[in-house]
C-alpha cells in the first residue's frame, strides 16, 4: 500500500469498524426475539438439525411499533418539536449571525467568542440551569412575583414550553456558526449596488442576502433539526414525564424495559427517517466548500 493509502486507512478502518458495522448489528438485532438472557435477545441464525442453518427473521418488533400508537406519536412529536425548534433557532440566530458578520473585525471576534463559549460548556449543566430558572420557586417566578407582574407562580418546568426553550437554547450556536461562516464570505457591495438602484434595505435583504445565504441556512438548520429529533437529555430533564420524544422512548426501552430488539427497531426507523436529511446536509456542505475555493 502506498504512503497515501496508509494515511487514510487508519481513520477509514476505525470508522468502518466502530461507526458503520454497528448499524449492521443494530439492524440484525431489530429482527431478533426478546429473550430473558444476557444479552437479552435470541440469535438470528440457528442450527436446526445437523446441516441446516435456519435464519429466523422476526418482524414482531416493527409490527409492535406500528400497532402501539405510543411509538408513532413519539416519532411525530419529535419531528414536530425538532422542526419548530429549528424555526425558532433561525428567527433568533439569523439576526445574530448577520450582526456578527457585519461587525468590525475586533467586535466580531469578541461576539464569536461569546457565541462559542456556551457551546464549550457542558450541555447537561446548561440544561440544568434552566431547571433553576423555570421551576415553581425558581428565579423567573421569584423575579416576576417580586416585581408584582404575577401573583401566583407560572408553571413552566415540565411543559412543552420548557422543552422548546431547552432545545433552542442548546442548539442555537450550532445554527449561528455555519450561518456566520456563510455570511462572512458575502460581498456586501452587492447590497450597496441594489440600494443605489433603488432597492429598499429590507427588499435588498430579501432579494440578495437571503438567497445568497441559502447554504448557510440549510447547513445550520440540519445541524439543529437532525440531532434535536433524537434528543434525549433535554426532554428527560425539562419535558416532564409526558414529553414523548423518540430518543427518550429508545432510552427507556433499552434501560428500563431491557427490550434491546425493540430499541434497535426504533433506532432503525429513526435512521430511515433521518438519513435523507444527513445526505442533504452533506451535499450542502460539499457545495459550500466548493464555493469557498
Amino acid at each position: 500500500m502506498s504512503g497515501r493509502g496508509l494515511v487514510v486507512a487508519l481513520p477509514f478502518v476505525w470508522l468502518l469498524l466502530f461507526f458503520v458495522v454497528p448499524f449492521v448489528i443494530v439492524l440484525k438485532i431489530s429482527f431478533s426475539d426478546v429473550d430473558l438472557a444476557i444479552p437479552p435477545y435470541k440469535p438470528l441464525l440457528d442450527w436446526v438439525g445437523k446441516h441446516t442453518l435456519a435464519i429466523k427473521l422476526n418482524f414482531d418488533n416493527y409490527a409492535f411499533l406500528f400497532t402501539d400508537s405510543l411509538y408513532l406519536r413519539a416519532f411525530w412529536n419529535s419531528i414536530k418539536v425538532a422542526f419548530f425548534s429549528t424555526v425558532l433557532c433561525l428567527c433568533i440566530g439569523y439576526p445574530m449571525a448577520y450582526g456578527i458578520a457585519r461587525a468590525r473585525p475586533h467586535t466580531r471576534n469578541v461576539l464569536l467568542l461569546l457565541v462559542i463559549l456556551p457551546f464549550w460548556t457542558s450541555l447537561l449543566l446548561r440544561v440544568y440551569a434552566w431547571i433553576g430558572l423555570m421551576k415553581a420557586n425558581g428565579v423567573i417566578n421569584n423575579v416576576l412575583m417580586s416585581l408584582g407582574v404575577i401573583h401566583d407562580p407560572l408553571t413552566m418546568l415540565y411543559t412543552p414550553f420548557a422543552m422548546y426553550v431547552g432545545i433552542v437554547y442548546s442548539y442555537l450556536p450550532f445554527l449561528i456558526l455555519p450561518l456566520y461562516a456563510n455570511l462572512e464570505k458575502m460581498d456586501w457591495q452587492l447590497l450597496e449596488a441594489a440600494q443605489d438602484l433603488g432597492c429598499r434595505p429590507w427588499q435588498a435583504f430579501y432579494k440578495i442576502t437571503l438567497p445568497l445565504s441559502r447554504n448557510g441556512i440549510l447547513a445550520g438548520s440540519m445541524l439543529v433539526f437532525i440531532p434535536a429529533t433524537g434528543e434525549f437529555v433535554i426532554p428527560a430533564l425539562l419535558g416532564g414525564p409526558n414529553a414523548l420524544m423518540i430518543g427518550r422512548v429508545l432510552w427507556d426501552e433499552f434501560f428500563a424495559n431491557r427490550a434491546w430488539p425493540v430499541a434497535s427497531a426504533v433506532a432503525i426507523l429513526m435512521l430511515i427517517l433521518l438519513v435523507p436529511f444527513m445526505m442533504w446536509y452533506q451535499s450542502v456542505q460539499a457545495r459550500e466548500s466548493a464555493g469557498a475555493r
Partner: protein
Amino acid sequence: MNQRMSYFVLTCMSLGLAFLYIPILSMIVFSFNASKLVTVWDGANSPTLKWYYALLGNEEILDAAWISAKVALINATGAVILGTLAGFGLARFSRFRGRFTLNAMTTAPLVMPEVITGLSLLLLFVAMEQLIGWPAGRGITTMTIGHMTFSMAYVTVIVNSRMATFDTALEEAAMDLGARPVKVFFLITLPIIFPAILSGWLLAFTLSWDDLVISSFTSGPGTSTLPMVVFSKVRLGVSPEINVLATLTITVVTAAILGVNWFIARAGKLDA
C-alpha cells in the same frame, strides 16, 4: 446597514446573548448562595463558599471526575491522531478510492442522534465479546472507543478547513528541495496546522468530558463518569453542588478558550 436595520440587529444580538448567558450567570451567582433551596437567595448568610467545600469533599463526584478525566485525555489524543489523518487525507488527496465514504463517515457522526450511536456501539461491543472475547465487559476502554468515534469527526472538520485555507506552495517548495513527504508533513504542515490541532484536541477533550448518552450506553458497572453522576443527581432535583461544579467548569473553559485564542492570535502574527 441603514439605521433602522442596525437597531433591529443590535436588539436581536443583545436579546440573543442575554438568552445565552442568563442561565450561566444564574448558576454562578447561586453557587455562592447559602440556602439549600438553591434559587431562593439567603441574604443573611451569603455569599458563602460552603458548597465549594462540600463539592471538594464529595467522593462520588471526585471519583467520577477522575474517570471522566482519564477517558477524556485518552480520547482527545486518539481523536486528534485519527482526525488529523482523515482531515489531511481529505484535504490533500483529491482522488482516492473510498474518498466519498470517508467523507460521509466523518460528517455523519456530527449530526447523528447520540442515542443511536450509543446503542449501536454497545451492541457492537456485546457482539464482539461473544465472537472474539474482546472487549471483556464494558468500562473505560469501551467508553473511550465510543468517544473517539464521534470526536474524531469534529477534529477532521477543524483540520480539514484549516488545510483548505493554507498555501500549498510551502509544501511544494520543500518537496522541490528534496524533502520526503513524511518530512514535509512533520516540518512544514504540522507546525502550520498546529493551532487547528490544538483546538481539535481541546474540543475532543470537552466533548468527551461532557458526554452523557454515549457513556451511559458503553460504560460498565463502577465506571460512572461525571455527567452520569450529575444526571442522576439532577433528576432528583436541583442541588447547590451542581451550581458549584458548573461555575468551576465555566471558569476553566473560559480560561482555556481565551488562552488558546491568545496563542492562535500570536501564532498568526508570527506568520505574517
